[in-house]
Structures are given as structure tokens and as C-alpha cells.
């Protein structure tokens, strides 16, 4: 997957030679030991979204706190997924950062493009599938958390109808919808998930309206894969259960939030920067989850019945132990066709390209 080609290495060496001649303080080649690493982060939303980008920024702060003097960080927020991203990433690479973390799916191609132009800078892209000789990728197994949410939804829903406020039909989101629905149907075989696409990662007013539209259709669980707490607030007003996204959002919905999937990127960032410091950074494809502690569930809401708490905890424990995987067959798709045979797990490569919906998903 990672190709190393000779020309790339030579240009790398040549530019390194060039900068040492003019005495530029810039980067040592990736691989050399470093005393200090300068790390940059690119966020798709505002760090004040109290959701995905906020959680990413908590990861950056964790990194600073853990490594102290050995790292300095900087970030750019509100970067739109498109041509503008390339400009921002290039600027960060030029500014002497040793490593640039680009934290949203849509930054994948811009990151790849810039990575080719800056062979001495390390790049890590989140939630995508492309890599290069100086670009790794990382992801969190969010779907493990979705399976916990699905279990809770399946057990607590009276109508057997769950609503799902979703952003874009990319593999990441499809995976979440499927995991949620599979887990819910494991406890309630009649459970259905109604999906509404809002075509945005962050648009509080539209997210709230989407949740309200779902509620008026009779769903009594709200799940979301958008970044603001707005759907959760709508659930709180309507008195139905819901789940926080990327961070513990209890404050917005003390009654409604049963739990939340909490992104905990810090340990990964520390690991990457440590590798740079030690001089053995290599592009990796990292896909960690609950076991590696980059994904946690927020404390169960005390309003959650005891048997539900137990069932949810069991999913968490078995996921950590590696004995439970929501994507284990038999799995039927939306049309009822058997897609995954009994006892077979969907392999990671297929999950990362997942574009079909399981039985029980509606509105897609």
C-alpha cells in the first residue's frame, strides 16, 4: 500500500541538502531524530462546535499536555472541504510544521496533493483511505460506539422507529447507520431506522429541523451523525431519548442523552509525535477503537433502565475483548438479499468502502 519510489527519496534528499546549505532552520528529513516537533491541525468546523472539531482540538490539547516542551501545535479551523483546504494545508507545510493532521474525510485529496510536494513533512489524514510515502491515515472505529447506541435504542424504543440525522452518504456515515440498525435489530427485529440527510456537517438550524421532522413522523429515538448538539436539544424538548455526538453533550440534554460516543484522539496524536521524535515515523494506516482507548462511551444516564445499562456495558466489554463485532453475518441488505454469510465478518477494506444499507434502514 505504501510505495516508496526512488525519485521521491532523491528529491527529498536533494531538498534537504539545499536547505542545509542555505542554513534554513527548516525540517530535517522524516526519519531523523528530533528534539522538538511542530504539529499542525486542520479542522472542518469551528473548535467551538462542541462536537467533532471540538473533540479533535481536545486531542491537540492532550498532545501538548503530554509532551510539554517537545511539541508545539497550531491549528486552522473552519476549513471547507474543497480547493481552499489545499491552500491551507500547503501553507501549514510551508510554515515549517513537521507533521500536519488533516481531520476530515474531504481533506483526503488535497492532503495527498500537498504531501507529494512536501516530501519532508509528515501528513496524517483522518477517516479516509489514501496514503502516500509521507502520508498516513487514521480513523476511529466509531461504529463500535454506534453498536452500543443501537442496542440502547432497540431496547428503549416503544415505537420501534429510530430517527437518524445524517450528513453525507460517505462510507464513514453509512457504516454508522448500518451498525446502529444492526445492533438495534439484534434486540428488536422489527426496529427500523429512518434517515434524513441534511447535506452538511454543521448547520444547527437545519439539524434541529431535521430532528423535528423525524419526531413528527413518530420516531422516539434520535441519533445523529452531524456535529452540533441541535438534534439532541430537539429530542430533549420532545422528551425522547438521544445520543451525543463526538463529545459528552449531557449539558444540552440532561434527560435525553443516554450516552454519547466520545472521540478521544489524544493517545493517537501522542503516539505519532513520539514516533517523529524518535526518528522512526512511517506512514501507517491506523484504525483504532475502544480497545486502544481512542473511543469511549460517556457515562450512562441514570434514567437508563438497569437491564439496558447492563446490555450496553456488555457490548463495550466484549468489543474491548475482541469477542463482539457488529458486522458479523448473517447480514441482509435493504432489499433483503443476504450480503454477509453467517459467522463471517465484513473485512476492514470493505468496511472502509461500505456503500450499502442493511435491512431496516429507510429513507436512503
Amino acid at each position: 500500500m505504501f510505495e516508496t519510489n526512488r525519485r521521491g527519496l532523491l528529491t527529498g534528499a536533494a531538498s534537504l541538502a539545499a536547505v542545509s546549505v542555505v542554513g534554513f532552520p527548516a525540517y530535517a528529513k522524516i526519519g531523523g531524530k528530533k528534539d522538538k516537533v511542530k504539529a499542525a491541525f486542520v479542522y472542518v468546523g469551528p473548535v467551538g462546535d462542541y462536537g467533532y472539531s471540538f473533540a479533535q482540538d481536545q486531542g491537540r490539547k492532550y498532545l501538548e499536555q503530554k509532551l510539554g516542551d517537545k511539541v508545539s501545535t497550531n491549528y486552522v479551523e473552519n476549513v471547507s472541504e474543497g480547493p481552499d483546504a489545499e491552500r491551507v494545508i500547503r501553507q501549514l507545510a510551508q510554515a515549517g510544521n513537521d507533521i500536519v493532521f488533516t481531520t476530515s474525510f474531504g481533506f483526503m485529496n488535497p492532503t495527498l496533493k500537498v504531501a507529494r510536494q512536501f516530501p519532508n513533512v509528515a501528513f496524517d489524514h483522518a477517516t479516509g483511505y489514501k496514503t502516500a510515502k509521507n502520508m498516513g491515515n487514521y480513523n476511529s472505529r466509531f461504529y463500535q460506539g454506534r453498536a452500543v447506541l443501537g442496542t440502547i435504542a432497540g431496547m428503549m424504543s416503544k415505537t420501534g422507529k429510530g430517527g437518524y440525522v445524517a450528513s453525507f452518504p460517505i462510507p464513514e456515515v453509512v457504516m454508522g447507520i448500518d451498525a446502529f440498525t444492526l445492533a438495534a435489530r439484534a434486540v428488536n427485529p422489527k426496529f427500523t431506522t429512518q434517515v434524513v440527510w441534511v447535506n452538511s456537517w454543521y448547520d444547527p438550524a437545519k439539524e434541529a429541523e431535521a430532528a423535528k421532522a423525524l419526531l413528527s413522523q413518530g420516531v422516539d429515538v434520535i441519533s445523529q451523525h452531524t456535529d452540533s448538539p441541535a438534534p439532541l436539544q430537539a429530542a430533549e424538548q420532545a422528551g425522547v431519548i438521544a445520543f451525543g455526538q463526538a463529545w459528552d453533550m449531557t449539558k444540552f440534554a440532561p434527560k435525553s442523552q443516554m450516552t454519547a460516543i466520545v472521540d478521544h484522539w489524544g493517545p493517537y496524536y501522542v503516539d505519532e509525535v513520539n514516533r517523529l521524535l524518535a526518528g522512526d515515523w512511517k506512514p501507517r494506516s491506523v484504525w483504532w477503537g475502544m480497545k486502544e482507548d481512542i473511543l469511549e462511551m460517556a457515562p450512562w444516564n441514570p434514567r437508563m433502565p438497569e437491564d439496558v445499562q447492563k446490555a450496553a456495558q456488555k457490548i463495550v466489554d466484549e468489543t474491548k475483548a475482541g469477542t463482539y463485532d457488529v458486522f458479523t453475518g448473517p447480514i441482509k441488505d435493504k432489499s433483503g438479499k443476504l450480503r454477509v454469510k453467517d459467522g463471517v465478518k465484513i473485512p476492514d477494506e470493505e468496511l472502509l468502502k461500505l456503500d450499502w444499507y442493511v435491512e431496516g434502514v429507510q429513507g436512503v
Partner: protein
Amino acid sequence: MTVPLAVAIVMSIAAAATPLLIAALGELVVEKSGVLNLGVEGMMLIGAVTGFAVSYTTGVPALGAVAAMAAGALAALIFGVLTLTLMANQVATGLALTIFGTGISALLGAPYVGITTAVLGPIFPAALADHPVLKVVFGYSPLVYVGLALTVAVWWFLKHSRAGLILRAVGESDEAAHAIGYPVLKVRYLAVLFGGAMAGLAGCYYSLVLTPMWAERLTAGRGWIAIALVVFASWRPGWVLIGAYLFGAVMTLELQSKAAGFSFFAPELLASLPYLATIVVLAIISAGRKSAKTAAPACLGRPFRAST
């Protein structure tokens, strides 16, 4: 369609339309006086954060709404000084105001991220406001009624009051208005301040009613839709009302039909409906006798320098 569903849909439409309506009416008055302020989005954000901060601190959402208006007007005053007194380019200054508003609201709002506040909720007694059917009339935030009343007020002001006539004269021909002795700059300042106050009020609708919280870029570009609505309505308050509710309806129906699981339309087509509707209505309006071009105030966007 069931009654509760119909009630929910109507209420969603009003909720989506109200901030657009209030902000667009403010901008309409500004443009009628011959000033183009593209900073609506920025002023809305400043209003949203101020409204939230004051409501959270005092515990009185209504006070938050008043503060939001004041903050919006203050931001508009900066625009006024730059474009009216110092005669800076209005388009550039308006855009700068939006960028400024986005930044300063994020800065001021940082301590308020992650908390929630009391909702600026219904004013009628609970028997009416929570009634399953009657809430379609009585169950709204006061701002929804303010929006409707404001439409009538702005229409009456422009059409039937002397002050409104002067304001229109200033917007149509500043030289002539000045020659007769009307204070062109003073009129424009007042209009700009009013527009700012309305944008601030529209902004706090998001942070106090729709999603009672503060988060950066909370209004997510609605200020631009408000500006477009003014053109869409060819500078007539009644059409602003229709346009805002039409836009609200299309946005709501898009989500409702997805939630209901209608699959005979592709979701992408539904998502494009608000914009298609805008184009269709614009085409219908400009096909009429009074096209958008002739309906615009003649002095729109032109700086005024008093000749002595």
C-alpha cells in the same frame, strides 16, 4: 395527512421563516434608503452571541433579545461610520462586517460554548400554547408574531407615512432629497441602525429559540438568504413575507418528505428545491412589468457627498 403532522409542519415552516423575514425586512429598509449592507450575516452572529450571553447571565431571554438588537445596531453603526461618513465602498465594507462579525462572535462566545439557556418560548397560557391543535396559532415564540407585525409596520411606514416617503426619496435620488433640505445622511444612518437591530434580533432567534445554545457560525449563512430575499421580493415587504415563508416551506418539506420516507424523489433533488424555487420565483417576478432592475432603489450602493 394527520392533524398533528400538519400542525408540526406549519410550525416548522414558521420557525424556519421567521429569522429570514426579520433580517430581510431590516435589510429592505436599509436598501430603500439607498444603502447596501452585505454585513447581515455578521450582524446576525453578533446578535446571536449577545442575546445568548445576556439571556444566560440574567436568566431573562427577553432581555437577551433586546441586547441582541442593541448589539446588531452597534455593529451597523460601525458600517454606517465607514460607508456614510468616511464614504468607504459599501460592498467591501459589508463583506468586511460579515467577516468581522463571524470572528468577534466566536471570540465573545468562547466562554458560552457547551451550555444552554432558557428558551424564549410561547407567551400565551399553556392551555393554548400546548394545545395539540390550537398551538398552531398560539404556540410560537413571540418573535414569530413580531415578524408578522413587522411586515405590516414596514409596509405601512414605507407606503403611508411621511417619514417613509422621505426615506424612499433619499434612496431614489439623494441629490434631489438633499436639495429640498432633507438630511440624507441622518436618514441613512437611522435606516442602517434599524437594519442592524433587526439582523441582531433575527440572529438571536437561533440562539434563544431554535437551538438554545451558542456555537460558532450558528446562523450558517442564513444572512445571505435574507439579502437574496430582498431582491427576490423586489423591495416589497409583502413579498418578503411570502418569500420567507415559501423558503421556510421548501426547507421544511425537504426534511419532512425525507423523514416520511418518500422515495420517489432523489434526496439530492429535494435538497436542491429551495434553490430551484428561488430561481423560479425570481424568473416569474422579473417576467412581470416591474423587473428586479427597475424595482431597485436608484441610489442603491452609491455614496453620497453633500454638494454645497
